[in-house]
């Protein structure tokens, strides 16, 4: 219905584009006719009140669920196509860490899984960039909430391609220092032409990040 | 209460460490000759059994080992209970130190029993009540050891293990009285407090010698293990650090 201020379309296809998108959970239609684009170099802040459908939308974008109607393309291909060539990163509300593994091992597995560099040095520097120097070898079960979130986000520190990042409440449980570190990663990513689609109930640092907002409460 | 609490919590480990250190050589010195004498009497002096021939001689290991397996469990449960009630670290460490030796004797009783079973009953194993409950005892020891080992947090491990040890103590009377409650293959008590012993004096002497040897061995090994535990757990305490520096200077002097 309404496509919030679409940016001037860049040369390449946008990282994410949705048209006429509708999503149903159970028997409730969360939204319909939603259209938006996320282009390279953009940080897009998906807003909406509790239960509005932000998480559901992110899962559509990641291809973990199929839309009720309309289509959502990632790098020009339907998001739910399983054979995707172009890389992207999805970090959901769950941290995907294993209680019994150490922070290093957990992160290393995730990187190997996604075919990213996973040498000990790469993992170590990623953890360091999220400020986890002291707890690298601690079992995940002994980490505090915020430390776990940091380990999950450390995946972003090894990324070096201008790809799409889809982040569900990444600031959750982070302290001021953690927020700062995440912002650094986001800005570096945008600077290399990558794009970010994230949700957050916390006010973003609009001065540094200059995010474009999509407010589900107002559209659809 | 607070006095006792303090003794158990703070004074005990240091004093225990010193006292046990002095006793251990004597205990070893007692265990070795007692065992030698007991084995000699059992295998060379005691007469051949009329029905079972030579195979019965395994009794000199089997019965003392079976006794020890039960006594050690009771001691373990006792210290666990003391540790629980008074929050006494030393008591937990003693319980912890007793478990492997108890498991060893239980295994020994089972093993020698099985070896004996082949000539006596024609089979290694039957599911009779005493044999089963002795097997349960082995499981209880192993369960205790595994449980304590599985818990990273020392305090939680101590208390969880203690609870198990206390609950498992019901098994001991079952083992002991099983021959009386069920009529089974296994032999009833031959040595009781009330009746006169039915066996030859040499056999009895040999058995008692072995029993004392096992007792001395148990004390020695358990004290050694407990001392190691004390040092490990109290490594941050002043007296352990003193001890370390003293032994280091002694090494340097020699």
């Amino acid at each position: 219905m309404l496509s919030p201020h679409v940016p001037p379309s860049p040369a390449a296809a946008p990282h994410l584009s949705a048209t006429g998108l509708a999503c149903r959970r159970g028997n409730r239609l969360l939204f319909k006719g939603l259209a938006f684009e996320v282009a390279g170099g953009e940080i897009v802040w998906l807003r909406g009140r509790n239960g509005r459908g932000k998480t559901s939308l992110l899962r559509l974008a990641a291809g973990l669920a199929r839309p009720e109607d309309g289509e959502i393309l990632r790098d020009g291909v339907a998001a739910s196509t399983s054979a995707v060539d172009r890389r992207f990163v999805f970090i959901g509300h769950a941290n995907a860490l294993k209680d019994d593994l150490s922070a290093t091992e957990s992160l290393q597995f995730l990187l190997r899984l996604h075919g990213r560099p996973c040498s000990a040095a790469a993992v170590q520097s990623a953890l360091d960039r999220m400020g986890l120097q002291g707890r690298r070898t601690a079992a995940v079960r002994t980490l505090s909430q915020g430390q776990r979130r940091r380990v999950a986000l450390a995946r972003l520190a090894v990324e070096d391609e201008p790809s799409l990042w889809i982040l569900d409440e990444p600031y959750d449980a982070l302290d001021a220092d953690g927020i700062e570190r995440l912002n650094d990663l986001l800005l570096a990513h945008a600077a290399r032409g990558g794009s970010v689609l994230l949700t957050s109930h916390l006010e973003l640092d609009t001065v540094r990040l200059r995010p474009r907002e999509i407010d589900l409460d107002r559209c659809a | 209460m607070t006095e006792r609490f303090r003794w158990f919590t703070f004074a005990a480990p240091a004093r225990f460490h010193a006292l046990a250190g002095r006793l251990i050589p004597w205990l070893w010195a007692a265990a070795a000759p007692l065992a030698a004498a007991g084995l000699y009497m059992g295998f060379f002096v005691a007469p051949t059994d009329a029905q079972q021939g030579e195979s019965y001689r395994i009794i000199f290991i089997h019965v003392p080992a079976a006794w020890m397996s039960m006594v050690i469990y009771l001691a373990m449960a006792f210290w666990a209970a003391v540790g629980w009630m008074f929050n006494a670290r030393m008591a937990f460490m003693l319980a912890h130190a007793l478990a492997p030796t108890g498991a060893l004797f239980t295994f020994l009783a089972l093993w020698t029993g099985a070896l004996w079973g082949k000539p006596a009953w024609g089979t290694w194993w039957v599911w009779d009540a005493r044999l089963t409950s002795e097997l349960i005892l082995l499981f209880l020891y192993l369960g205790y050891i595994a449980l304590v080992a599985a818990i990273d947090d020392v305090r939680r491990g101590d208390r969880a293990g203690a609870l198990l040890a206390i609950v498992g103590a019901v098994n001991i009377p079952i083992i002991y009285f099983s021959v009386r409650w069920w009529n089974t293959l296994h032999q009833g008590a031959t040595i009781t407090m009330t009746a006169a012993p039915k066996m030859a004096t040499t056999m009895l002497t040999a058995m008692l010698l072995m029993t004392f040897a096992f007792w001395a061995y148990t004390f020695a090994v358990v004290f050694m293990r407990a001392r190691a535990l004390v040092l490990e757990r109290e490594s941050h305490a002043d007296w352990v650090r003193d001890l370390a520096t003293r032994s280091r200077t002694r090494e340097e002097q020699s």
Partner: protein
Amino acid sequence: MRDLFLAVYLRDLRLALRRRVETLMPVAFFVVTASLFPLGVGPEPQVLRQLAPGLAWVCALLAAMLSVSQLFASDFADGSLEQMLLTGRSAVVIAAAKSAAHWTLSGLPLIAAAPLLGLLFDVHRDALGALLVSLLLGTPVLSLLGAVGAALTLGLRSAGVLLLLLVLPLTIPALIFGTGAVAAVDAGLSPGGHFSILGALLILTALTAPVATAAALRISLE
């Protein structure tokens, strides 16, 4: 006291009923194991009839051990258990309620399914009766003891085996007297002695196990 017991007990039943089919699990387990046996062992009725009571008891034991390991797991993971221990009211009551719910959901259906075994394996009327009574007296013991083990091993890395290692040995007496009762009937004797020992076992565990469970829960949450 009573309302606390009922609150916890009824909630567990309701949760189980939400998963309708899941409540059939113990029965399914029982029936499947019992029907796999003739496949594996061979179909001679004489052998099977002899096997039946032991089979029923072993199934009951395994079903109880396997389901009890999850007794506190989900409450632990989602924080409910913490809330239960924070009521300031007796944790023993809560432990008793959880054990009771476990028995209602795993022991009771199994007893209800036991007559089926009579059909499948052609067990005599009297023996079946003795089997039912022995299960009725024995399965609560399994739930009560299982709860202690589950509480002790809560959140540990090797909870599964530890639970087996800790609890199964303690349940062996129930197994022995349970099958003993049936064997007595088969031999034309009265199973009364066995029943009274089972009853004594039940009373003993009912009095002590919830206390131990409550203590273990406190230790595990610390």
